């Protein structure tokens, strides 16, 4: 539960405002473009300061900040004539997104739904299943965890070409790369979670004569859940990176990684940025979905309590 602030919007202190005007004045000596960019930035910052802390400000401030970045980006690129092959303007990127929706949708299906999601599901399931085995056997824990550590440390730029050679150019090899990247974080987190019980709780289960299965279901599954979600959230980030980078090493002619790498080669930077936007939005939504699921299932955990 967040305690919302109930203060009215306020103005920037006059000292800072004066400083801002002086800065803009000095910038005029360099060029009117720089002065204009600075003026716009300072003005938007002042507005942001004004709304920060108000009830509306909790959503308005981040939105305003994002808009400020986009506006400054657009202004700078236009006013200073930055070449499009170095940095395109946000409007150009938006146009590229609109013009290439079908292509990007096909890329999205290939990379995210087939490669990243497929690998994430397989890798996470394998990680959790292995963790259940490992938690029961000390012998397995001492043997498998170091191996898992080693596998996770293999650089993706080395494993991806090998897996492409083994599994072919299609989405299967990308899913394989994701599995390799995702397996160990999920395994380690789940093992830690399954072990995160106090001796009082374990003794209590023994007192009740709980079987191993009941112990798992009633005690350790709950304690493991926050850790499992932690692992899954890490895994979503890794899955997307893995699927995209793996495509650099061999792919059919669609996929986000393919799109980024070939359009860079063709100097089509707006399309590159459009693909980046798709990947970034996907990653955020996916992470957010897992976080929402976590909030529902582990509402009781300290990490889910609201900040003051």
């Amino acid at each position: 539960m967040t305690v919302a602030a109930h203060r009215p919007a306020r103005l920037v202190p006059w000292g800072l405002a004066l400083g801002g005007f002086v800065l803009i004045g000095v910038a005029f000596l360099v060029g009117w473009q720089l002065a204009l960019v600075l003026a716009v930035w300072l003005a938007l910052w002042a507005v942001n300061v004004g709304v920060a802390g108000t009830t509306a400000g909790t959503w308005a401030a981040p939105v305003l900040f994002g808009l400020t970045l986009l506006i400054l980006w657009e202004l700078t690129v236009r006013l200073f004539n930055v070449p499009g092959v170095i940095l395109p303007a946000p409007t150009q990127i938006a146009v590229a997104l609109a013009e290439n929706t079908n292509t990007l949708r096909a890329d999205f299906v290939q990379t995210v739904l087939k490669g990243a999601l497929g690998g994430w599901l397989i890798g996470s399931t394998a990680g959790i299943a292995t963790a259940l085995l490992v938690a029961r056997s000390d012998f397995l824990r001492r043997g498998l965890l170091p191996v898992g550590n080693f596998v996770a440390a293999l650089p993706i730029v080395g494993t991806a070409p090998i897996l492409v050679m083994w599994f072919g150019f299609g989405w299967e090899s990308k899913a394989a790369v994701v599995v390799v990247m995702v397996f160990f974080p999920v395994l380690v987190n789940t093992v830690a979670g399954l072990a995160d019980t106090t001796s009082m709780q374990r003794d209590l289960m023994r007192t009740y004569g709980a079987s191993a299965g009941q112990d798992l279901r009633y005690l350790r599954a709950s304690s493991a859940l926050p850790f499992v979600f932690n692992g899954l959230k890490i895994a979503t980030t890794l899955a997307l990176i893995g699927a995209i980078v793996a495509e650099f090493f061999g792919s059919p002619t669609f996929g986000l990684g393919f799109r980024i790498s070939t359009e860079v080669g063709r100097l089509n930077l707006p399309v590159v940025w459009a693909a980046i936007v798709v990947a970034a939005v996907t990653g955020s939504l996916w992470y957010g979905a897992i976080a929402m699921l976590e909030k529902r299932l582990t509402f009781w955990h300290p990490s889910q309590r609201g900040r003051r």
Partner: protein
Amino acid sequence: MKHLIASAGLAVAGLTAPAFADAHANAVTLQLQWVTQAQFAGYYVAKDKGFYEEEGLDVTIQPGGPDIAPPQVLAGGGADAMLNWMPSALSAREKGLPVVNIAQPFKTSGLMLTCWKDTGITGPQDFKGKTIGVWFFGNEYPFLSWMSQEGIPTDGGDDGVTVLKQGFNVDPLLQRQADCISTMTYNEYGQVLDAGVSEDELITFKYEDMGVATLEDGIWVLEDNLEDPAFVDKMTRFVRASMKGWKYAEENPQEAAEIVLENDETGAQTEAHQVRMMGEIAKLTAGSNGALDEADYQRTVDTLLAGGSDPVISKAPEGAWTSVITDQALN
């Protein structure tokens, strides 16, 4: 704040980079389009044998590699001149990067498709329904143009070609993941043979023989720089010395290969491979004195424009090449 500083700094760098690049009237940075190998022997020979020094030039040769797009390096001010295939450079020009060809040491194309004979492919129309490995990063334009002219769609299916983004190796062919792969006469074809495949198991299609060849390694610079007389003078001397290096390399392939090996910082190249490559490259540079032949240029432009539904360039480029430098350099 950081974003503002970063973008302002980037803008400043972008504006002043050309000025920095030729602050020295005798320093030239050349961006190669691949790793150090005999494909660029002329430049290494000119450097090692002192031809550049004779012209009073201090030349830095920057090797390229996968994921390095020479047009981008040129745009960012990282080099004075780049080597690039003409389709890629013309496409960059259409995208708004004003590059201009100042010399064309390579007269003919070394690009070819190498296929397994047992796939039953005997001609381009047999590509339908097959899987073909194609390089990207500027090297896909000749292929896309060719398929467009043949009327074969490149998005898969029984009536089209399934295109694989081929890495810079020959594994897709050896592993049977592709029926055909893109190869250069001077490099990957040799690698396929080295892997134990005999020539009668293969069938090859040279782009030159198919009439869809485009000009390859040319020397390109940014248009704005050509307005600076000091730059033009510098590049004239550079082209003169480079062509001297090329002719020397053609006549002394063994020595040229050795010079390339000495300059290979990665140590990945072998003598046998480089000597063979130099021999094949000499066939491509023979017949050119460095000047771009307008007929060749026109043929390349026509090939690119003829690409029906998916042309590489949409209209004939203007001012994409100049003979100003070669006229002075080769007299």
